[in-house]
């Protein structure tokens, strides 16, 4: 296990890049949740918007990540700092699963429950916060989970524009034709993705049980 020795010898840098990676993924996911969940709620209640919004999110998803990073590079404020740019790009990719699952989750609430709630005199916001969101929460979380797993993978590419993260090792290893260095980036990234998947999955299950 050559690469294990490499990681041990460079554990400081591995840790640093892992934290950087987490930062990129964490902030971009947070951003995507803050935008995506409200957006998903809006398109549930304004059905006219649902198609354009979901189609746009879909299209963003199809843009190759390296190209998206490249496109955003010349944008004034964004291009100034590569981590800023990487976070925005990652958030854009995370949008689709979050918006879509929010939409699906809320649309999946039993119509009889909504009718009863409305008939009992719940206001729209009471209906949203006490009924629709709690009932949709596990579906929304499974969207967040997908978004995080995608982001952990994509964030490695952010190193190409100098945003840091575990991709640094991967690109460096590619340039050096040194598998140990590539693995030093790839394996922690894989572990991060697995851990996030399990963690959010656990949360999802706990919330669904109620």
């Amino acid at each position, binding site marked *: 296990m050559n690469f294990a020795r490499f990681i041990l010898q460079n554990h400081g840098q591995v840790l640093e890049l892992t934290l950087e990676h987490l930062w990129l993924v964490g902030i971009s996911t947070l951003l995507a949740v803050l935008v995506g969940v409200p957006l998903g709620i809006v398109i549930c209640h304004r059905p006219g918007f649902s198609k354009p919004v979901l189609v746009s999110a879909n299209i963003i998803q199809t843009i190759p990540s390296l190209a998206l990073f490249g496109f955003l590079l010349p944008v004034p404020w964004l291009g100034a700092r590569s981590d800023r740019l990487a976070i925005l790009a990652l958030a854009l990719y995370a949008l689709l699963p979050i918006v879509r699952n929010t939409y699906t989750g809320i649309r999946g609430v*039993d119509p*009889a*429950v*909504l*009718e*009863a*709630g*409305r*008939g*009992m*005199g*719940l*206001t729209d916001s*009471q209906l949203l916060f*006490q*009924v629709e969101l*709690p*009932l949709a929460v596990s579906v929304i979380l499974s969207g967040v989970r997908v978004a995080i797993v995608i982001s952990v993978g994509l964030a490695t590419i952010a190193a190409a524009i100098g945003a840091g993260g575990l991709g640094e090792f991967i690109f460096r290893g590619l340039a050096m034709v040194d598998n140990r260095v590539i693995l030093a980036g790839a394996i922690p990234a894989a572990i991060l993705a697995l851990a996030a998947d399990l963690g959010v999955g656990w949360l999802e299950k706990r919330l669904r049980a*109620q």
Partner: protein
Amino acid sequence: MLGGHMPAEATTPVIEFRDVFYRIEQVQILSGLNLQVEQGEILVLLGRSGSGKTTTLKLVNRLVTPTSGEIRVHGVPNGEVDVIRLRRAIGYVIQDVGLFPHFTVERNIGLVPRIEGWSEVRIRARVQELLEMVRITGDLASRYPRELSGGQRQRVGVARALAADPGILLMDEPFGALDPLTRDELQQEFLSLQQRLHKTVIFVTHDLREALCLGSRIALMEAGRLVTVLSPREFLESADPWAAAYVRAFGDALTSRGNRSKS
């Protein structure tokens, strides 16, 4: 206002439909509905699927807004009052019950009192009272709806509708999905409950037996029109072709039942 009972003169009906028409796009759902519901009666809306019964019911709590005409509740056109206040003063029970699956029985029943800002102590006392009223034992209070039988769920649905002590109850085939024995049981319990509570009830059903058993009066609907309003006894003897058709359709099953029905 809506909340309490108005010391209304006996002449003011609790609910009144005046020349109500309702149309979705080109389809006429209700045509020229005129109907009055008096304090303390159970008015049954009887008719086949698509006859407009459910729409009529939903007009009262404004889940449906009429194309023309008005609905008065306690003498006030219901379009002129705040819709949330209107609905909280009217109990609503539907066939699919619509209990909140993520709330316990207790929280389901206490929801309207809670959002009305009652104190916890008062809510708890009220929930206990209601559970006894609908004969749900206390140990079920902390269960979730999925852990209850169909009959129990519907009892909880009734309790929830009664929680804030509304003067009016709207019931849309509440016992329609239950097995015959449970249905019978719930009908009888509902009757004895009503003898104590004297709510003003509109009850939708397509089951003539249920209509005869529960109704003070039966309003027969067909294709968006009110055909006739009769007492159960009158209904059985009616010469009206639609009423007669209904009686024929239910056939012999009725005779024993009809004689027992209260006058």
